[in-house]
């Protein structure tokens, strides 16, 4: 296993806490969620003006990358964003990340779950290749369950075929 059991339990606990908070978007003015993350790691996002904050990570570095139809291959643009993510994670060792994989609605439910997992894994592998310890990363797929854009045209589908890197607290924080 790549993950220490302890870390998994902790992360799972954090994610569970996030899921149980239906108002997580409603509170905290100044919180940004440009990537459409479903879980938020259960932590304070901080200010986008603070380069050390998860909010800055999401808004300025970019917490999400997009994919072509049915694909989990990273585009050059995606690699560039992920390089920035890796750099930020490298200089903020107190944080971990959960990588969410998502699919557009044009597919069956089970397949989209598997496809989202492929996308999340592509991101994880790239971050690891850029020096982020795999012990700090965990993947999850939401399939087509959490679209970011809700129209039923390619304009929205292209935004929904995404992987979102959600910052969470690391061990001992």
């Amino acid at each position, binding site marked *: 296993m790549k993950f220490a059991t302890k870390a998994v339990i902790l992360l799972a606990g954090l994610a569970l806490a996030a899921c149980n908070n239906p108002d997580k978007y409603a509170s905290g003015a100044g919180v940004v969620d440009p990537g459409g993350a479903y879980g938020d790691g259960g932590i304070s996002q901080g200010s986008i003006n603070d380069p050390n904050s998860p909010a800055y990570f999401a808004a300025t570095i970019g917490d999400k990358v997009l994919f072509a139809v049915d694909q989990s291959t990273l585009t050059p643009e995606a690699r560039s964003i992920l390089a920035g993510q890796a750099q930020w994670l490298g200089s903020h060792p107190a944080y971990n990340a959960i990588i969410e994989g998502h699919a557009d609605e044009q597919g069956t439910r089970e397949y989209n779950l598997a496809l989202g997992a492929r996308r999340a894994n592509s991101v994880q592998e790239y971050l690891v290749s850029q020096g982020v310890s795999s012990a700090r990363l965990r993947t*999850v797929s939401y399939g087509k369950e959490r679209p970011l854009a809700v129209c039923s045209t390619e304009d929205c589908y292209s935004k929904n075929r995404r992987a979102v890197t959600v910052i969470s607290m690391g061990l001992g924080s």
Partner: protein
Amino acid sequence: MRHSRQKFADAQRLVMRCACKDGYSSNNPTKGTTRMKAFLKAAMAALILTPAVAAPALAQNGPLRIEITEGVIEPLPFALPAFVAETPDATEMAAQIGQVIAADLTGTGLFREIPREAHIQRIGVFDTPVSYSDWQAINAQALIVGGVSMQGGKLVVKFRLFDVFSGQQMGDGQQLAASPASWRRLAHKVADVIYSRITGEGGYFDSRVVYVAESGPKDARQKRLAVMDYDGANTQYLTDSSTIVLAPRFSNAGDKVLYTTFETGFPRIKMLDLASVSARLLPEVPGTMTFAPRFSPDGASIVYSLEQGGNTDLWKMGVDGGQPQRLTNSPSIETAPSYSPDGSRIVFESDRSGTQQLYIMSASGGEPTRISFGEGRYGTPVWSPRGDLVAFTKQHAGRFHIGVMRTDGSEERLLTASFLDEGPSWSPNGRVIMFTRESPGAEGGAALWSVDISGRNLKRVPTPGAASDPAWSPLLR
């Protein structure tokens, strides 16, 4: 759809030919019960492309009476006079039970009820001798007479079925009893017996459907498990909507439900006991996702998808634990497994060829055989309870379809077409398929629909709100 219509027409010709071989084309004179059976038999054989199943009931002398014109089948007209309330406290129940029986039969698309205003004979007492000529005059082929009473706190329903044109009772009268709270089940059981006597096939009315009830906006949809009668009545919620739940599946005994939940933050499989409404997470390998579970026919094992390092394969585990067994080992996506009714094989989808296609392998794993070869992508295969067909979701040219094919991949027929149809589930008798239909756009939502395996009788199944991922139970006991 041109392609599929063509295929369906071919299939009909095939069946009509087979039906004749099975004894429809006899020159013998009409004999009532046989005639009525043959009427529906012919219609149903044409629908399901499995004349062999229907053959035993047809192996008798009877006329050919196939009422098919361009694939449209004339439903069999029946009369159901108000059930007689035999005790004063049974009046309301008598009326409701009659309504449910009639709705079950007409809901199949194979029967049509003759309105009561047209009835000539009035049945005020259960044992009233049937005046066949009165029912022949209004062209009722079947007559259903019933009586309802309350006896010692139990609700008692008795009924008789008559073949009007042969002037005789069809099968024995029957009596069923249950607590008054189960009145709808009693009605469904009566309808199942009537359906079964006339068609020679098992019924499907006394059954339930577990599904995902949906609410909230599209980008923050709330989902919870619910179970209802097959016709949408008696909805009961099994989980709250605090976390995403997906794709519930019944055990063959109808007592347990497997589903996928995000309650830990990651997709995991949970097994729910319906009687106690208690659920437990199945064991997992840390760092993996598990989803798309389905019971083996004997209920002893579970086949499911396990994702590890971005790759999804099929695994099997015992319901009561034990070492999980890996069934596929491929860098492609393998998911949506479904057992054959005898438990010996598994049909599933894989994109190993580059797109989603359907494959069949031994239930213990091994080299699979691809069965889908048409244009487009094929997913969510489900083996029919009869064993002869596989239902699936097909995506082609921007549309979604529910379809069926034989287990060797031949005779593919598409039954539906829409923006998004997916996730077929079989009725207990293998005649009807229920599935999810989702409408497009920001305001789009999911609903349950059903369709006969002929592609006829497409209709929405009533639910209190939006709904998806239906799974039909076996016939209840």
